[in-house]
């Protein structure tokens, strides 16, 4: 496996925390994601993975700490500005525009990089027409890239489940992200769909996009990622190459349960 973990830093979080009332969902998490890297974020249920994700993408405002993308501060920005800065996301529970066609879904993703206004829409001048044509062809290309082009004119909600997940990726790619954040993209996929997804993620990385992957499926993450961080109870307990993280006793303890791990580890 090629390691691309020595490039310049793309996304950086410093002491990121999020409190929900008295509950610390995230506590002082610091991460670096490099350019062109596939970075995995794993952890048991309720470890704070999605909370971290929402803090990065502007859905939550972090209670403390900061997020920087290519040196630009992201925290406090609204989700649409975060997307404009170059961080696009998918959702754990698919959130497509279900009554729009697959193509239209991707075309909506192009919104942030285009600029036709009301006057352009009404008069449909040359600039607007060219832009529309460009949006359309780009959307077709992206559908082809993720392999959903045969469903371009079907409603998003009528697509097979795996294709819906892939369509979400195409829609996110339409925003031309530097970092693509995937929230459990393999959830609910069958083995064949999973293999295809892995190939897609690797193909995306080859185009130079960095990928942040949140997954439940440890095997998938270990096989795909350059580096992995493990969250447990809102804290980062390990970070590094997948093989090293896999052997980390703290990680094993988090996954197998503290009491058992502790009982085994202690001399009688």
């Amino acid at each position, binding site marked *: 496996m090629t390691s691309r973990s020595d490039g310049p830093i793309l996304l950086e979080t410093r002491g990121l925390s999020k409190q929900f009332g008295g509950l610390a969902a995230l506590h002082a998490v610091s991460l670096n994601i490099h350019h062109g890297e596939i970075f995995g974020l794993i952890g048991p249920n309720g470890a704070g993975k999605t909370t971290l994700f929402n803090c990065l993408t502007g859905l939550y405002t972090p209670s403390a700490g900061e997020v920087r993308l290519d040196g630009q501060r992201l925290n406090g920005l609204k*989700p*649409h500005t975060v997307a404009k800065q170059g961080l696009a996301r998918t959702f754990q529970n698919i959130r497509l*525009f279900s009554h729009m066609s697959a193509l239209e879904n991707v075309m909506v993703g192009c*919104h942030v990089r285009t600029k036709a206004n009301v006057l352009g*829409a009404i008069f449909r001048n040359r600039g607007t027409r060219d832009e529309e044509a460009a949006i359309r062809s780009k959307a077709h290309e992206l559908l082809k890239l993720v392999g959903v082009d045969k469903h371009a004119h079907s409603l998003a909600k009528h697509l097979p489940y795996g294709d819906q997940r892939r369509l979400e990726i195409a829609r996110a790619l339409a925003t031309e992200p530097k970092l693509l954040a995937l929230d459990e993209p393999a959830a609910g996929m069958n083995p064949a769909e999973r293999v295809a997804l892995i190939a897609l993620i690797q193909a995306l990385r080859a185009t130079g996009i960095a990928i942040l992957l949140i997954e439940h499926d440890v095997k998938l993450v270990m096989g795909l990622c350059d580096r992995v961080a493990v969250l447990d109870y809102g804290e980062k307990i390990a970070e590094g190459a997948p093989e090293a993280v896999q052997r980390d006793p703290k990680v094993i303890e988090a996954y197998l349960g503290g009491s058992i791990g502790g009982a085994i580890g202690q001399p009688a």
Partner: protein
Amino acid sequence: MLLGVLLAALPFLVDAGLGRTWVRILDFTLLYMMLALGLNIVVGYAGLLDLGYIAFYAVGAYLYALLASPQFGLHLPFWLLLPLGALVAGLFGMLLGAPTLRLRGDYLAIVTLGFGEIVRIFMNNLNAPVNITNGPQGISLIDPISIAGVSLGQTHTFAGIEFSSAHSYYYLFLALTLLVMFVSMRLQDSRIGRAWAAIREDETAAEAMGINTRNVKLLAFAMGASFGGVSGGLFAGFQGFISPESFNLLESIMILCMIVLGGMGNIAGVLLGAFLLTVLPEALRSIGDFQRWYFNRIIVDPADLRMLLFGLALVLMMLFRPQGMIPSAQRRREFKHDDAPQEPAPLYDQQK
């Protein structure tokens, strides 16, 4: 082409067949079509349920009335008042839209309903301490619309054909309705229209895909309101008299019913809805005459009958054709083969 000839000949046919009153009803139908198309942008395209839409009609009407009547002794020309009405109503749209940006669904509807009433009550009470609107008495003697020195308030003869005031207004309103229709169509099929549709589908996802939901929603409010403002200005000039009671809640609901009945989001449907709900109530008036002639007394008051039938029509629509008579392609899909309707996922961040 054929449709064009028909539309051009319509007022004469109606005049000959049904009388001058019906030409005026035709004029009103066109005004309501403009209103319905405007509300369709807010409700049909962007999915923002606005129950106070009539406020923008009122703003347009009062703007015209104040600037072209003896009220302040101002008599500004129509070509200035028309765009001004659109602009001011659009600004009001943003003004009333801004505080509601965080609200969705029912909550939005309630607040917009309140705003609609606030505007009406303002018009009703702005006669003291400084008299601006004449309060409940309304403003009268409003200048009729006049284009290039030709007042539409009088009868003119061109090429041997007599154009009454109602006829002239018909052609002006028709031209503007076609313009509003054209703008609606262009907007729907554009980057902006797609952004509106995305917000209607899933606001959180739209925002995450980089759509500035605040601006795009304000734009929908402003565009919809400006159509209302244009229609309001035309109404004031056509009618010559306006008062706050023309702009009550029932009117807002009526316009909403037009687009729901006809087919939300679809221009042809919206036009049909506006046509039916303006013409049918008028047609029902004749039921009173019929009863007087046949039974020698009024058994069912036509006004009551109108409401009764109207209610029945709405119930039947909701039961058998909730997507409207001519639904938009998208709405049709929403209501058709709804195999396991997907509930939108709960918002992650409702406490933010």
